[in-house]
């Protein structure tokens, strides 16, 4: 640990600088004081405004599910059986797994094409878990579940909107400085 104040070298894990007595403990904690960083540390998934999910039964045909995607203008449907989320069917699943098969959408069932057991979150969790999953795993939709609420969805568009909003919020008074 090199002391940022006096530049002397200390043992790793030291609590304070041996030369100038600057405490080190504060330096390791992320400083969540303002701007996007503060919002990332404090906001919950509910702040992304999850939308009520469009749901479909696993036994439904892919054709029905695709019709739902079109009618509701959404990127994915949740596959729900007895009020439990068992899978997720996104545009990407249709492209990758059904792709060019002609006229097959009516004969294939949703559970054959869906992504089973998606990662789900609760609305009270930190927003960072959603961002982490989207960035690391490449998911574009994450179901938000709770006991007293029908399932909802957070999409990457909501995330982009959120990031955009926090940047625009931060900019005007910054620019005037």
């Amino acid at each position, binding site marked *: 640990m090199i002391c*940022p*104040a*006096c530049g002397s070298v200390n043992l790793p894990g030291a609590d304070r600088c041996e030369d100038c007595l*600057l405490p080190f403990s504060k*330096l390791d904690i*992320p*400083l969540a*004081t*303002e*701007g*996007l*960083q*503060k919002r*990332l*540390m404090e906001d919950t998934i509910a702040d992304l405004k999850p939308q009520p999910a469009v749901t479909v039964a696993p036994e439904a045909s*892919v*054709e029905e599910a*695709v*019709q739902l*995607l*079109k009618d509701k203008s959404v*990127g994915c449907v949740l596959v729900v059986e007895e009020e439990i989320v068992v899978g997720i069917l996104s*545009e*990407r699943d*249709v*492209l*990758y797994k*059904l*792709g*060019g098969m*002609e*006229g097959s*959408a*009516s004969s294939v069932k949703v559970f054959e094409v869906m992504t089973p057991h998606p*990662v789900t*979150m*609760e609305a009270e*969790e*930190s927003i*960072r*878990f959603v*961002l*982490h999953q*989207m*960035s*690391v795993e*490449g998911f*574009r939709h994450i179901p938000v579940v709770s006991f007293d609420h029908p399932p909802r969805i957070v999409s*990457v*568009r909501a*995330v*982009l*909107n959120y*990031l*955009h909003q926090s*940047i625009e919020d*931060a*900019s005007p008074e*910054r620019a005037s400085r």
Partner: protein
Amino acid sequence: MFLTVIDENAGFEAVSVELTLRQTKIRHLQLKDMVCVDPETSLGETIATMQRRRNGCALVAAGSNLVGIFTERDLIRKVVGRDQAGLERPIRDLMTPEPAVLSPDDSLLDAVRLMNRGGYRHIPLVDSANRVCDCLSVINIVDYLLECYPQEVFSLPPTPGQNFSEPDGA
């Protein structure tokens, strides 16, 4: 003297994200290889290419000039469930013509604004002569922003509520 510098870092940070977005050009991002097809390519072949390359978006270019874009959403809207949608049809009939584009020299903030306004997930990048350069995806932007906060975002356990009884490696 140095102590005040450390304290000011916190305020400096909020400006820097917006500044980075403004100053970073799209060409500075590491983008995935794009899928680019000819307007006369058949639908079946385009889908096969997208599946093989694991890409949800294909640019359609005549020569090197961008004429359209074909994404997962076009597939859902115009192909799946339609009986007469043959796989031999040229992609030209199914693509979205003249999509909104940006130049690689535009800033990330331009891209964020355009995507937010239009609800786009992919923006083709073209140079001043309308030649295709690359394709920017929404996840590239989210990734870039989050890389500014490795400590907050990437050092999380995979699921919420996962606690480790003892420190790793101790």
